[in-house]
């Protein structure tokens, strides 16, 4: 019956309500006039006529009131009125409002920030078409974690699989870029040609790679990223076809990718083709490729994984020495990228939910206390005809108002927090740098605000709405049974707050202990005062091993003459940098095709001394181990144990493949050195064999410089020496070993700090809650306390009484919290290091800390209770 026209008319009438109301008054007055006139005409005397007319008419005031009901929407008017009233009330009770808004803003802000992180890192789909069909293919050596793929395995997979539309392989690289703006250092990716076809990206300008560009001789083409195009090529629209130089070799630019294309997720400056040499099939033991594929439509990744696993099983039989220990598998690309960080981020999100619940409990407590003060107002409303529903609605509207104000402040806090996180957060959480306050995040904040208003407002609203008029009149305004019930409710809320903050604090405590233990792990070398940077000698100028050896010799000589430099060295790859290098080897005397693979490192003669790695047996490389000298190798402790268990490794022979595509060279083991935590302080050291830099002819290595001065002061000298040898060389990723070590644990540190922060906020809120409840209890019992003191009780006993009550609350809270934390700490498992889930010391320390601070918080009202003047108390109504 109510059509669209009705709504419009209602609105229209409402907009003119004042005018209409006065017109209606006139109409009614005229009506009564007419009736009066008619009565007079029938013979009634004048005043009687008017009285009769008025009586006949009924209540004219109510007529207008009831008419007004139809104008506008009653609920809308009531709503607007509630908002105005609520706002006025909040402004009046500034103390309450400030505390409540502060608590809620912290809770909502933390939640909003965490949601943004969660959304950006985990929830947002990958920036490729149909990302759920993308999978990472990897080869896994069970005891050593999942590693990269070897080129022959990749090529065979590509040829023999039945589940993939296409797969491509990639390997990271960095080069010195010249020929486009300022010479600079770029980080990029070498990829096989079907890279774009598999991922599904379209170039903004130009084209992607074609098949033949994957072969040696045709592979000097480059695909630019949007970022590089803007920064180094000034977004030149005719850049396609121009050339650039990478490590002084010429490449032709064939295209530019759009801004939203990112592979890998952390961003790449450019992509160039990956090509395999003719001897690629002899390198089955060298695992250095990352492989990604797109499954055929309708094929699940689990099925594809089985396909790959089957192929790998065949490889195991065909090539038992290289592939004997390797299994193949495919996992969704999303899993591979975020699978590691998801549990931790979900944990942090759970923690902030806990924090916001504690904040809600606090505000609910405050509202319950305030409820007492507003009893009179609410009882009057009820007397004037407001239904319970109407009163509840009004109170909930006030709660929503409070919530929305807090949410606005919370969003600001979240914005600052996110800026900090983006700047200081670990660089290895994918896409973290993109977290910010966007539309989704604002929507989340809004919904959260409304939800919290409901959570903390419902209970007090229901309680107030039930307030009976009679009860109020009967009671003196306090000390009624309602007061006791409120007190129980408030105590229950505080107990919940204490329990919640205990759980968070236990979690934070466990992470802090884990991190402390992790920091005490000896990395195997001394990172103090060590400067390190990457140097990459371009093939063009340094073709032969002799040239490279000449460079290193000269550079080290110059470096050691620098003031502030104690010793130097070079290593490839750098420990704790996240990079590894594995090659295939065969033990002395074994036939050619019996190979396995192991991690290799290439180091200079002074490396050991510079990094202070202990020499355990034999000797390290020295000046005599040059290019033409007999090949020597040094094994790490674990390598010696693995290759020659129970024997003396010195003098043993082992043949190593130096670089992918090169032939294997046999060397003699001359020494054993201590293990180094190459892949992270939390993981066990891996077996490693060192070969001398000079004998291998390596042009890409990390230089390590031990300095007597602070490392940063030596940087310019180091650079100057480099340029003195070859003015076109630059260093890359200049940093200190201390930074590298702390960078390797930055993720754990991040989680620890975040959880610690949340736990801190939670405990602060809980302490405020305890203070509030105890203060309230004291004010309730002022009369009783006065009587006790008047009857001779020592003041100290009053203090004890109050503190006992506080202790009771805290005790129950701690008990509940401990129970809950015993269950929940298993979620921390992956983040703990050498600390048990139920570590008793942490539990005890945290409980004691909470108990002590809670008692201190309760002391303030307790002292006040002590000082009650019995005369005043007894007179107090």
């Amino acid at each position, binding site marked *: 019956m109510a059509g669209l026209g009705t709504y419009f008319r209602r609105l229209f009438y409402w907009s003119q309500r004042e005018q209409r109301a006065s017109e209606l008054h006139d*109409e009614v007055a005229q009506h009564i006039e007419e009736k009066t006139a008619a009565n007079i005409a029938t013979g009634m005397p004048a005043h009687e006529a008017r009285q009769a007319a008025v009586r006949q008419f009924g209540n004219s005031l109510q007529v207008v009131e009831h008419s007004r009901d139809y104008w506008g929407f009653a609920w809308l008017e009531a709503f607007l009125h509630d908002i105005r009233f609520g706002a006025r009330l909040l402004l009046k009770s500034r103390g309450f409002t400030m505390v409540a808004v502060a608590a809620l803003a912290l809770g909502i802000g933390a939640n909003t920030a965490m949601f943004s992180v969660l959304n950006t890192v985990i929830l947002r789909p990958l920036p490729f078409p149909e990302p759920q069909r993308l999978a990472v293919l990897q080869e896994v050596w069970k005891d050593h974690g999942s590693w990269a793929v070897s080129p022959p395995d990749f090529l065979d997979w590509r040829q023999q699989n039945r589940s993939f539309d296409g797969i491509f392989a990639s390997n990271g690289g960095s080069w010195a870029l010249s020929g486009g703006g300022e010479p600079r250092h770029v980080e990029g990716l070498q990829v096989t040609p079907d890279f774009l076809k598999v991922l599904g990206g379209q170039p903004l300008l130009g084209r992607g790679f074609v098949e033949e560009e994957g072969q040696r001789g045709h592979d000097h083409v480059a695909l630019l990223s949007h970022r590089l195009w803007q920064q180094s090529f000034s977004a030149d629209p005719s850049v396609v076809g121009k050339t650039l130089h990478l490590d002084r070799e010429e490449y032709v630019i064939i295209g530019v990718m759009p801004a939203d294309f990112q592979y890998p997720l952390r961003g790449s400056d450019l992509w160039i083709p990956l090509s395999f040499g003719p001897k690629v099939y002899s390198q089955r033991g060298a695992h250095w490729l990352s492989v990604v594929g797109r499954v055929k439509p309708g094929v699940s990744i689990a099925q594809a994984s089985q396909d790959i696993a089957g192929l790998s099983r065949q490889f195991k039989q065909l090539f038992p020495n290289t592939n004997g220990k390797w299994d193949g598998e495919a996992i969704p690309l999303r899993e591979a990228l975020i699978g590691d960080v998801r549990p931790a981020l979900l944990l942090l999100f759970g923690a902030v939910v806990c924090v916001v619940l504690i904040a809600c409990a606090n505000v609910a407590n405050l509202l319950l206390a305030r409820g007492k003060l507003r009893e009179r107002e609410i009882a009057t409303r009820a007397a004037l*005809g407001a239904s319970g529903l109407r009163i509840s609605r009004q109170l909930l509207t006030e709660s929503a108002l409070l919530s929305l104000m807090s949410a606005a402040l919370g969003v600001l806090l979240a914005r600052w927090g996110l800026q900090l996180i983006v700047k200081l957060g670990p660089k290895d959480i994918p896409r973290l740098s993109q977290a910010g306050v966007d539309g989704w995040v604002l929507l989340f904040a809004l919904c959260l605000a409304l939800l919290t208003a409901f959570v903390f407002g419902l209970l007090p609203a229901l309680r107030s709405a039930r307030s009976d008029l009679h009860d109020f009149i009967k009671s003196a305004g306090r000390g009624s049974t309602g007061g006791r019930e409120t007190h129980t409710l408030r105590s229950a809320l505080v107990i919940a707050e204490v329990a919640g903050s205990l759980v968070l604090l236990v979690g934070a405590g466990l992470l802090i202990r884990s991190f402390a233990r992790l920091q005490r792990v000896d990395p195997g070398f001394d990172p103090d005062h060590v400067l390190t940077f990457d140097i990459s000698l371009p093939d063009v100028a340094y073709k032969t091993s002799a040239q490279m050896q000449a460079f290193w010799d000269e550079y080290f000589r110059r470096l050691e003459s620098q003031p502030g430099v104690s010793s130097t060295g070079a290593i490839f790859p750098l420990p704790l940098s996240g990079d590894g290098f594995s090659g295939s080897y065969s033990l002395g005397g074994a036939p050619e095709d019996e190979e396995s693979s192991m991690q290799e490192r290439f180091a200079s003669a002074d490396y050991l001394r510079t990094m202070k790695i202990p020499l355990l047996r034999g000797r390290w490389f020295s000046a005599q181990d040059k290019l033409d000298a007999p090949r020597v190798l040094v094994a790490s402790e674990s390598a010696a144990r693995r290759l020659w268990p129970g024997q003396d490794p010195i003098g043993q022979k082992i043949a190593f493949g130096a670089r992918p595509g090169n032939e294997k060279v046999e060397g003699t083991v001359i020494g054993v050195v201590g293990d180094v935590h190459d892949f992270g302080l939390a993981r066990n050291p891996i077996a490693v064999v060192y070969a001398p830099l000079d004998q291998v002819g390596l042009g890409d290595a990390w230089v390590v410089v031990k300095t007597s001065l602070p490392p940063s002061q030596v940087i310019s000298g180091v650079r100057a020496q480099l340029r003195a040898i070859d003015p076109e060389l630059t260093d890359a990723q200049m940093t200190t070993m201390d930074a590298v070590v702390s960078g390797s644990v930055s993720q754990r540190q991040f989680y620890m700090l975040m959880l610690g922060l949340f736990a801190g906020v939670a405990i602060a809120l809980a302490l405020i809650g305890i203070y509030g409840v105890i203060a309230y209890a004291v004010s309730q019992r002022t009369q009783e306390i006065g009587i006790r003191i008047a009857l001779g009780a020592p003041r100290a006993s009053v203090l004890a009484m109050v503190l006992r009550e506080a202790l009771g609350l805290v005790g129950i809270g701690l008990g509940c919290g401990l129970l809950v934390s015993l269950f929940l700490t298993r979620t921390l498992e992956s983040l703990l290091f050498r600390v048990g889930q139920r570590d008793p010391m942490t539990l005890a320390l945290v409980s004691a800390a909470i108990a002590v601070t809670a008692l201190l918080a309760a002391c303030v009202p307790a002292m006040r209770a002590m000082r009650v003047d019995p005369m005043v108390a007894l007179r107090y109504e």
Partner: protein
Amino acid sequence: MARNRAADRSDMLPGTLDMLILKTLTRGPQHGYGIAQFIQQISDDVLQVEEGSLYPALQRLQIQGWVKSHWGTSPTGRRARFYELTAEGRKQLGIEETNFDRLIAAIGRVMRTV
């Protein structure tokens, strides 16, 4: 204390006031007093409409779009608001009449059983 609607307090079946007003207006535009007079007279004073309750009902009818109004002069020379039926109002009257007849017939059937 529930709020009493004007309709609740009339002595008729709820909703019949609307119908009576609509029917009255089929005779042409009329002002509030005139409508009250008409209902009273034609029903032989049986239906004592509380005249005040007309006005909220008239507002309701206007909001629904069944009645529209304009200012004019009454037969006695006073300024009054005149209400008249709209096309939808006529249609609605037909619907209400049908429903009312059905209701009365049903009550009658129940009452006439032995």
